[in-house]
Structure formats: structure tokens, C-alpha cells
């Protein structure tokens, strides 16, 4: 999985936590770097991103990944945010495809969401293997 956040201390804590729980974790401080990481590491199945990263839009990154990475290279995205404004608002994507969690993270929910996201990405990839024109989110 790939963690995208501009707060290094947050990455320094979340990374080890997830690694201790069996995840392979890479981190990235900004969306452009994140896209490079994604392109070079095909095994990344889940991206966890903040909504605002420096002056770049994390939500835009999330949508772009969901749009571009479908089928056999499908990647699930989880958004974490420190902003209150997304709560109760109506994100453009379906909650199932783009879960939004709030900082500070409730770890139980977060881990469950991550598992679900990993399953979703895995299922999408498996479906794509069996049926190349499978039900990708953009189809």
C-alpha cells in the first residue's frame, strides 16, 4: 500500500503501525511522487491519501487513480482527512469506492476499511483476469 501525506511525523507513525500488522508500506509526501510510485510498484493495491497535501488536491489524486487504475491494475483508495467540511457532504464518488475517514483515526474502523479496500482491489483484479472487460468503476 501507498501512504500519501505531507505530514512526515504522521507517516512515520502510521507506516510502522501498518507494517507491524503485515502490510507492505511505501510513503509519499505529494501526489506527483505518489503517481510515480504507483507506476513503478505494480503490487500497490491500496492508496491512503490526505485530502489536502501541500497545495495539491489529494481528492483529485484519488479520483485520478480510481479512473486510471482499473481492471488488472485496479487500486483501491482510502481518503483520510483532518477537515471537518467533508463530513456530511456528498462526495462525488460512491462511499463504497472512496471511503473517507477522519483524523485522528479510529484504528479499528481504519483497519477494517483497509481490509475491505484491499479485498475490493483484489476482487477487481481477479475479475479482470477472468473477464478482461470486467466491471471496472468507470465502465
Amino acid at each position, binding site marked *: 500500500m501507498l501512504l500519501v501525506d505531507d*505530514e512526515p511525523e504522521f507517516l512515520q507513525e502510521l507506516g510502522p*503501525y501498518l507494517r*507491524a500488522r503485515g502490510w507492505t508500506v511505501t510513503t509519499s509526501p505529494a501526489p506527483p511522487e505518489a503517481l510515480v510510485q504507483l507506476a513503478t510498484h505494480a503490487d500497490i493495491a491500496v492508496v491512503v491519501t490526505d485530502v489536502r497535501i501541500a497545495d495539491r488536491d489529494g481528492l483529485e489524486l484519488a479520483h485520478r487513480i480510481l479512473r486510471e487504475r482499473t481492471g488488472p491494475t485496479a487500486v483501491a483508495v482510502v481518503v483520510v482527512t*483532518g*477537515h471537518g467540511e467533508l463530513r456530511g457532504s456528498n462526495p462525488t464518488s460512491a462511499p463504497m469506492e472512496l471511503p473517507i475517514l477522519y483524523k485522528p483515526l479510529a484504528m479499528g474502523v481504519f483497519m477494517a476499511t483497509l481490509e475491505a479496500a484491499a479485498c475490493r482491489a483484489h476482487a477487481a483484479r481477479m475479475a479482470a483476469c477472468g473477464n478482461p472487460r470486467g466491471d471496472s468503476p468507470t465502465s
Partner: protein
Amino acid sequence: VEEFPHLPTLNVAAAISAAVAAVLLLMHRQELLEMRGRSWILCFAAMSVAFVAFAVRGSGPDWVPIVVGNAMAWLALAAAWHGSRQLRAAPSCASLVVVPCLLWIGLCTTSEFYTSEQVRIATAGGFGIVLLSGATIEAWISWRATRLSSLRDVALLFSLYFPYFLLRSLFVLVGQPSVALAMGGWLVFVSATAIPYMILAVTRERAIQTQRQREVDGLRAGRADIDRLLKDLPAVVFLRELLPDGSTRLLYRGGDAERVTGWPAAVLDQLDDVSQLAVSLTDAERTASYKRAMAGEVASLEYEIKQPGGGTKWVRAIGRVLDQRPDGPVLGVGHIVDIQEQRNAEARAASAARLASLGEMALGLAHELRQPLAIVSMAAENVLDDIETGDLKAAEARLHRIIRQNQRASDIIDNLRRFATGAQHAGSAEPVALQEAVERALLLAGGSLHAAGVAVEQDIPSPSPVALAWPGAIEQMLVNLLSNANDAMAARPPGTRRVRIIAAADHGAGTVRLAVSDTGGGVPPHILPRLFQPFVTTKTQDRGTGLGLAICHGMAKALGGGIAARNQDEGATFTIILPAAPPPARDAARSAA
């Protein structure tokens, strides 16, 4: 009559003198009329006739000096009596003036009186002493009443007759009646020639005195008019004398001072200066205001004064120099108004604007607080893991991180509290490093800017310029400007939203400058001139109160600086000018020396 010795030349001269005086007085009758002194003309006219009548003694019919001469003499003396009373405006009846004269003529018609010289001389002496005493006493009293010095001289001359009567009796007793007669002749001559001109002097002096009195009355009436006009004015109007030693003296005070100051007139009348009631006025402020006034500027001074029922109220005194002479006293004029209501409104507006800013900041602050909390909770989870795996070194590092992040969160809350409490206007200004103020402001507003994807650039020299300001004031102004910049750039595409904070010191002017530029397209030109007026806003109702910049403006001005706005390049630039703090290095150097 023996009182008047037979010296025809002397008598004619006296007659001419009295006649000339009568004519002169006639020419000044306007002044005489005003002082109701017409009877003096009659006095000298009668005197003139009397001397002519005495002059013909021996060379003409007997009855002329005896009847006409004496009757005219009594008329002159009675007129002098009457005239003296008139000079002090004492009640007097003009027709009584002729009574002694008519009485004498009446007596002369009886044959015993006319033929017996003894009886005649005795009667004439009685008439003379009574009328002369009356005129003399009245002249003295009138002098006491009017303080006309020329009238005193008249009274003195009249008084000379009394020692004369004594001496005359003495000389008659020692058998020298001729000496007595000569003395009397000269005295009559001197007084008859001198008194008329003295009366002329009295009329002139009286005219001047009346003129002065009129001027004084006019001034008094004018002042009463001013008092009446100013009575209900909600301001204290004052005229002061500014002395070279820096002190001032009250010359006039008008207006509704009781309402402005809240103190009764009895207390205010005891006060030379309303600022004696001040509770928060330093000598430095007084001196500075005095110097401004002396430099020809309009000096304005705001201070709190005690109230009779406890508590205080704010007033503003404004003064300027009326006219300044190279040396000697300088006149200053000014007024004091009650600005408590204005202060209250300003405080309410400031607090409203602060609350509005707080609302605008709330979202950004939520993010600012969540970030450290997220790190703290993650780190705590990891500490649990570390304890499980026995990696105590890692656990220790994480606990330190937790402490650090907690501190970060508590700093944000501290800043928020300081902001919400408001800058203490009443407190004294302290040196504030602009770098630190910018950091504190960014802790508050940075969240919102960050959330909106605004890039913040800083250009602050090192060491940072240091301003003289109330704690929190610069932060409040900066938060306002940053929040405005943020709102202004909301419609701009992401990636082009930039805020630039520039600090600089202007050593020549003793000021520091803090500029905030944005890329929000600038302020509409038609709003720019009145941008700092209250309730002027470019935002919609739910975003802005229109008070923020007005508060910034008021605050910068109160600190002895100012704030200006201009459009440039891609957006607006707001520049705050504040007085620079005196460099501490100088103090250190002085103490080292």
C-alpha cells in the same frame, strides 16, 4: 456783598472764564447729556453772570450786584450741588436748583433786608455755606462712587473754601479784614476759573469710563451669549493660555461640561483642567500633545477620567494654538468630547469582528488540531506495539513525539485564546518581533489557507524587524488580512493562490512595515477609497461583517501607525506601518558604557 471783594478786573476775568467754560460745556453737551450733567452749563452760565454783576459794583446801580449777583451765585452753587449728584446718578430734582435763587430775590423785595447790610451779609453767609457744603459733600460722594480722579480735584477745590472761612474769621478778629477780603477774592477767582475746566475734564473722563464700561458690558453680554449658545453643546469648549514652561492656564470654559465629564459644575469650577480627573494620562502624553499644539498642529489626546460614582469614562481633547507671539503667552483653543459611546461601539465591533474571524477560522483550526491529534493517537498505538515487542528505545522516541505534538496542539489553543480575548487597547505597547507575530498568526490562519491550497511565502529579514504594539494586535490584523486574502482567492484556480508576507524596517522613519499580498485579483477600484470604513465589504453577507479592515485601521492608527491598500500585479497588497521598537542594542551599549 463783602464775600466778593471789589476787584472789577478780576471779576470780569472770572466772568469770561466761566462763560468760556459754559460755552465749551455746551459744545460737549452730548457727553453731558449722557452723564446727565446739564446743570453744570447752567452753573457756569450763572457764575459768569454773577461775576459780571459783581464787576459793576460801585460804578452802577446797587441792586445789580446785590440782587442779580448773589441770586446768580446761589443759582451757580445750587446747580453745582445738583450737577455733583447727577454725576453719580443720585436722585435729584432739577427744579429745586432755582429755589435758593428765587428765595434770595424774594428776600430782597423786603425793605428791611435790602437796607440792612448786617442782615444781608449774615443771610448771604448762611446761603453760601449751606450751598457750598452741599456741593462739596456731593462732589466727594460722587468721586467715591465713580472713581473719576478729575472729580476728586473738583471736590478738593470746593473744600478749600472751608479753611478759607476759618482763616477769614481769624483775620477779621485780629483786625485785618483786607487780607481776608483779598484771600477770598483770589480763592473765588481761582475756583471760578479752574472748576469749569475741571468739570470739562470730568465729562471727558466720564465719557472714557462709560465707553470702557460699554466695552466690558459688551464683552460680558457676548460671553453670556456664547454661554447661552454653548450651554447644551455636548462638548467642553475651552480657551487656555499656554506658558513657555509647558504649563497651561484656563481662561474660558463653556459647553455642557457636566454632561461630558459626568461631574457637577461645583467640582468642575474648582478644576483648572479637566485632565486633572484623568486616571491614565502620563506626563509624556501631556508633553507630546503640548509640543504638537505648539508646533501648530491640531493636538488630540484621549484619556480616561474618574466618575463621581466610581468607574471611568473616555474623553477626547482636541486643541490647537490660536495665535502665537515670539514671546509671551500663547492662546490655545480646543474642545473635549465624550467618546465613551464610541469606545463601547468600537469594542463591540472589535469583538464582533473577532468572533466573525473566529468562525471563519474554525474550519482551518479543526484541521490544525486534528493533525497533531492524529499523530499522537498513531504514536500511542505504536508505543503499545513497542512495549509488546520490547523496543523501549522506539517507545521512548514516540513518547517524546507525543509530548511535542501535544505542545503543538496546546500552542494552537493558546493562540486562539489570545486572539479571542482581543488585543488589550488599554495596555502599553511592547516590542513585538514581526517574525514571531507572523508565525503566531499563521498558526491561527494557516489552517484555512492550507485547506484552500494557498501557498504562503514569507520574506522577513533576519534579525526580524521589531514593532511597538500591544500583544496580539499584529496577529489580529494579520489573521484578518490573511483571511481576507484567502476569501479573495477562493474564485481563483488552485495552484495560482499565493500569499506573500513581507516585513521590513524603515530606519529613517523609525517605523516597520508588514505587507500582505495576494493573487486574488485585487480590490474593485470603486471600493478602494473607502475600504477601511466600517461595513464596507466585498464579501457576501455570510462571509464578511465588513468590520475586519475597519478594526485593523483603527488599531494601526491607535498604535501610531497606519494601514494602506493598493492593487498590484495579480492582487491586492495591504501594508501595515507601525512604530519601530527602540533597538535594545542601544540600551545594552548604554548600560555597558
